[in-house]
């Protein structure tokens, strides 16, 4: 007996076909970005281990100049930012933007490949440039000065189709906040990146103002690229997996515009008490603290959305990573506020707490959200399911413990170091006590990065198998708890 398909079934089928067509149109570039990003992430975590060891034992690996801390540390961070962060971020942005706006990527796919290849070549040459002695010592812009136009051009090649998709599908009503964030990231990054590079490389002699602009760039990249991509992704996946709409559209809007208005002012408080005109660090300190508002608003909204669906955090890898990443958003915000305001910030200024802030923003917050997105997106593009629950769990727990211990030890190390720097007893002492006191924290940092490296080696292998199409052939997604498998929810169907 044959059942006659109802119109609802037909709609569903048409929807699924449309989704499959969109997925197929962005498949190549997105998988390319994820795979290369995962490779750079692994490279960066290994460099992180080495750099931390170098701070304890400078002669580790011999006195080879290519691997001294002053060159290794920027290489580690630049690989994390440009190799992994922005690259994987672009992949997530492209996929969510295509899906959310219901647009297929019509043309220019080969151009995207070219841009992706150029991006990776530029990052490779840039990192080699740092190691071989071409570092500019400008924080997060250490790569030799000829690299940035290539990076900017490649980014714009990816940003343009996203802006077009957004423009075609923009509608004032309905749930669009995730694409707001993603369009914001497409728009802010080129602006910040171009401004910082033109100021620092093309305008001669900015002296101490250059250092201020550099600090502004670092904060801009965190708050106006990494944050919007991660928040946009969590605004997309949390409702998707829980099957519930975002709790409050008003809160979502408030969180977005508060971030947009405040974030551009932040950064120069890094040099509070320094040579910059004092209003510049002051306004940075003010906005750095006020940013707790958008952070709190987004956190509240996520909390209200997930309320009552916490069992899904246990089963769905996507939700679990996204949930943890979203938890790190308030942690990032609080750390920024602690570093920014004058009462706690002066004690944490020029200490390891600053590194802790950068790493919690990029790895704890941004990367965790991106991992969540990757666990959702890749099976749909590769046409097979993740092979092993164990590998996903391994990735989650080692990453969680690693990043958690980096955050905690960095804050404690910062307090210790700040206390040592401002200790009146040390007024005529050399830096022996300070160097000895920070050693255990650097050992802890090396161990934490080793845990993260371990988790990401397996993530890279898992991802490579998926991209090669060697995943599980099944219609059921890979969930973390088989007990719940008998009640599959709509989102994974």
């Amino acid at each position, binding site marked *: 007996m044959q059942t006659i398909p109802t119109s609802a079934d037909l709609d569903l089928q048409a929807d699924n076909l449309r989704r499959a067509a969109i997925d197929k149109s962005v498949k190549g570039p997105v998988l390319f970005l994820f795979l290369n990003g995962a490779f750079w992430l692994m490279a960066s975590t290994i460099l992180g281990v080495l750099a931390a060891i170098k701070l*304890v034992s*400078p*002669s580790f690996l011999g*006195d080879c*100049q290519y691997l*001294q*801390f002053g*060159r290794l*540390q*920027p290489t580690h961070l630049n690989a994390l930012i440009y190799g992994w962060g922005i690259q994987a971020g672009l992949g997530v942005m492209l996929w969510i933007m295509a899906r959310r706006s219901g647009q297929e990527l019509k043309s220019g796919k080969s151009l995207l490949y070219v841009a992706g290849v150029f991006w990776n070549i530029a990052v490779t040459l840039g990192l080699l440039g740092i190691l071989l*002695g071409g*570092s*500019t*010592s*400008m*924080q997060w812009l*250490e790569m030799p000065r000829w690299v940035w136009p290539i990076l900017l051009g490649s980014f714009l090649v990816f940003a343009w189709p996203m802006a077009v998709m957004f*423009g075609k599908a923009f509608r004032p009503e309905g749930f669009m906040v995730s694409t707001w964030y993603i*369009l*914001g990231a497409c728009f*802010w990054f080129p*602006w910040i990146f171009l401004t910082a590079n033109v100021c620092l490389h093309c*305008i001669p*002699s*900015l*002296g*101490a103002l*250059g*250092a*201020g*602009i*550099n600090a*502004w760039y670092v904060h801009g990249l965190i708050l*106006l690229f990494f944050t919007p991509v991660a928040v946009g992704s969590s605004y997309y996946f949390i409702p998707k997996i829980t099957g519930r709409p975002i709790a409050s559209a008003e809160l979502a809007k408030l969180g977005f*515009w508060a971030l*947009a208005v405040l974030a*551009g002012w932040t950064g*120069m408080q890094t*040099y*509070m*008490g*320094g*040579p*910059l*005109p004092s209003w*510049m660090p002051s*306004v940075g300190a003010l906005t750095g603290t006020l940013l707790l508002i958008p952070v709190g608003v987004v956190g509240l909204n996520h909390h209200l959305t997930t309320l009552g669906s916490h069992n899904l955090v246990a089963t769905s890898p996507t939700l679990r990573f996204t949930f943890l990443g979203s938890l790190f958003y308030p942690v990032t915000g609080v750390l920024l506020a602690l570093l920014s305001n004058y009462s706690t910030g*002066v004690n944490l200024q*020029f*200490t390891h707490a*600053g590194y802790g802030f950068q790493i919690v923003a990029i790895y704890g917050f941004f990367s965790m959200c991106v991992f969540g997105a990757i666990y959702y997106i890749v099976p749909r593009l590769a046409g097979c399911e993740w092979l092993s629950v164990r590998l996903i769990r391994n990735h989650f727990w080692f990453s969680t413990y690693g990043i958690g211990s980096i955050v905690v030890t960095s804050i404690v190390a910062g307090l210790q170091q700040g206390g040592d*720097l*401002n200790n*009146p007893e040390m*007024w005529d002492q*050399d*830096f*022996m006590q300070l*160097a000895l006191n920070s*050693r255990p924290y650097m050992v802890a940092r090396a161990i934490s990065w080793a845990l993260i490296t371990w988790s990401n080696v397996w993530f890279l292998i898992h991802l490579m198998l998926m991209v090669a199409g060697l995943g599980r052939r099944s219609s059921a997604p890979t969930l973390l708890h088989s007990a719940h498998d008998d009640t599959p929810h709509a989102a994974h169907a």
Partner: protein
Amino acid sequence: MSNFRTFILGLVASFGLPWLCLIVIPVLKYQALQPVAYDKDADGIEGYYPPAPINGQGQIVYLREGCSQCHTQMIRPTQIALDGWHKGWGQDQEARPAAPVRSNTLYDYLGEHYAPLGIVRAGPDLANYGWRAPERAVIHQKLFAPRSQHDWSNMPAFKNLYIVRKAQGPVSAKALKLTGKSAPETGYEVVPTAEAEALVDYLLSLKKDYPVPGVSAAVAAAPAPAKK
């Protein structure tokens, strides 16, 4: 479509304002910054502030090696930190100076392409290193083998800035006097390259606490400019 336009305008306005106020206008105004002449009657000294530029060639080596990953070049005011009271961190090398070292101004970094204010203070601040610096040979020894001076040092050894070569004839006057583990094999000597010399010149030129014109406290506290 008008909503789309409003959205884009909102993005441009919300970011454009800080961009303009915090970056563009200060950058344009900075271009007009010129050294200020000291007033002989009020300041008691002649010439221009800042009096001496840093050594730019050496700064390139400083930036290339990433020294600013661990060393800052910025004295914070005494309201927020004790930098100014740290022994030897300013021109006055007395154990108990009459006044704290002043904090830095934009002028102190005038003419530098990029001022490496620093990221983390894992080593001492170098803003006024030129005043407290030991002899050149001792700085060279520090750069070549930091642990030969302090066994706890976390500073990397910049061996790439030095040449280990076979000693021919009398030992070069420039050769580092090394003992113990860091010494080269007998018959060999360690001499600094031009880059090492430039880096040391740069470190010696770091004197960022010259008196500020019109600030009497600084003048009162500052001894006569010493030759170094």
